[in-house]
């Protein structure tokens, strides 16, 4: 009997690979802009937030929504056109930003928005059973809603067709906070206990935390739309309460009960470092908003996007990419022959080195921002870029295990299971 992977694995893998490509592009442009001016900041932030940040979430949702509801992915044939749309749209946006071509910008924005809406439709219309919305999915649903709102706000702003309150700052916060932070918190409520073989210590507290952080988010969004420093301060504090509850719950979960693993899983290490940056980012963001300290915005943005988001995505990829490759290549052989462990598909030492590299690069950049020294910024960016290259190499090595598919003896059997009995 053999388990045959579905293209669920394929679309998730495509998204992860494309995301890594956008990470390299983002870092390269980031280093470049410390040396020479670039035509538009869109060329830097678009691959960062619409590619590197958004793609892993989309890829993960295609896997998580069916998995967490105990079913298979539906409307699977639409996932590839959806993937193509967001890629064409994003590459078009970057090209239009570089050349300053307004028509190309409009068309690319429409194409990306079309892809984003198709993604939301595939998840919401075909892969959502409202009777099975567990904690993580509740966060994902909120995040998905904010994603759609963010895309409309962002492109209304880029195309200058939106109302005056729909600023780029508001749109990027809806994208970074609403779409990304909600997605990551939702994922970590499941993944951290799962990877450490623990259980979430306080599920009811997590339920309450969902509402607290959403109230904080709405307050921040409203404060950005109305430009109210007082509201920013109040909603920033509510957000901090929400984040504190999350941090407490995660730590309590890790400390509770017997430890069946001798060490922290490497992905969990990345997640915990990322959470530390989330706390710092939220505190700094509240201070920046409340006291109108615009010069600290780049530090706030980079702590959030690199410290929290990138750290988390890299950590997640060290679980998801080996897992999908293992699932495709080795799961059919489980019970028939010896198969490698997930952690044997990559070098844990290299993963730890990258954890240090990301921190070193980011902290160097923060020093560069504080000193307003482009050379320090370029140095920090270069550390990040080199670290990212080693990460790409690590992921390529994981994906190379797929060559074992061609020699798989298990594929010669006649029986087939594909998420059920065939």
């Amino acid at each position: 009997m053999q388990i045959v992977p579905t293209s669920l694995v394929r679309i998730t893998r495509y998204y992860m690979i494309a995301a890594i490509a956008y990470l390299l592009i983002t870092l390269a442009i980031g280093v470049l802009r410390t040396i020479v001016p670039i035509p538009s900041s869109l060329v830097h932030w678009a691959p960062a937030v619409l590619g590197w940040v958004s793609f892993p979430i989309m890829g993960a949702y295609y896997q998580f929504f069916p998995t967490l509801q105990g079913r298979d992915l539906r409307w699977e044939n639409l996932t590839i056109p959806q993937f193509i749309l967001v890629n064409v749209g994003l590459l078009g946006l970057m090209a239009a930003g570089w050349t300053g071509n307004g028509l190309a910008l409009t068309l690319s924005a429409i194409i990306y928005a079309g892809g984003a809406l198709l993604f939301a439709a595939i998840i919401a219309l075909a892969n959502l059973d409202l009777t099975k919305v567990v904690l993580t999915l509740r966060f994902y649903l909120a995040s998905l809603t904010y994603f759609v709102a963010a895309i409309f706000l962002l492109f209304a702003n880029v195309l200058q067709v939106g109302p005056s309150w729909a600023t780029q700052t508001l749109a990027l916060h809806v994208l970074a906070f609403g779409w990304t932070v909600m997605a990551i918190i939702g994922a970590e409520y499941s993944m951290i206990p799962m990877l450490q073989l623990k259980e979430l210590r306080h599920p009811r507290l997590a339920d309450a935390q969902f509402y607290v952080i959403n109230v904080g988010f709405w307050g921040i969004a409203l404060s950005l739309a109305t430009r109210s420093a007082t509201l920013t301060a109040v909603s920033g504090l509510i957000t901090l309460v929400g984040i504190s509850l999350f941090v407490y719950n995660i730590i309590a979960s890790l400390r509770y009960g017997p430890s069946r693993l001798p060490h922290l899983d490497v992905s969990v290490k990345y997640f915990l470092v990322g959470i530390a940056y989330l706390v710092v980012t939220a505190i700094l963001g509240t201070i920046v908003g409340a006291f109108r300290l615009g010069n600290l915005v780049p530090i706030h943005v980079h702590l959030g996007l690199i410290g929290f988001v990138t750290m988390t995505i890299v950590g997640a990829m060290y679980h998801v990419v080996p897992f999908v490759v293992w699932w495709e290549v080795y799961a059919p052989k489980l019970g028939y022959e010896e198969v490698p462990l997930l952690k044997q598909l990559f070098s844990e030492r290299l993963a730890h080195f990258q954890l240090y590299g990301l921190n070193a690069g980011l902290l160097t950049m923060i020093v560069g921002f504080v000193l307003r020294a482009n050379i320090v910024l370029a140095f920090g960016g270069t550390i990040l870029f080199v670290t990212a290259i080693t990460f790409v190499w690590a992921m390529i090595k994981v994906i190379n295990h797929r060559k074992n598919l061609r020699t798989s003896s298990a594929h010669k059997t006649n029986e087939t299971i594909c998420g059920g009995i065939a």
Partner: protein
Amino acid sequence: MAATREQVIEKLRQVMDPHTGSNVYDMGLISDLVVEADRISLRFSLTSNFCPIGMQLGLALKRKLREIPVEKIDVKIDNYLRAEELEKMLAGI
């Protein structure tokens, strides 16, 4: 020849969780193990309700137990969203 409890435990120790590197028996995932002359029954509790390789682990476990010449092997699944589906699948092999 009737199956022995030691024989069953040895087979269960060959079913490795690819995430932890430990086997399902030493991880404490097996309970209610009953070994009779022509029948083995046990309860397999997954570490997570959403365990992404729950199906594969269940199948691997049944394959290993099938190497013991007994007439009937009953595997009950606990703490898994697709427990019913997996139990039905395991009953067929």
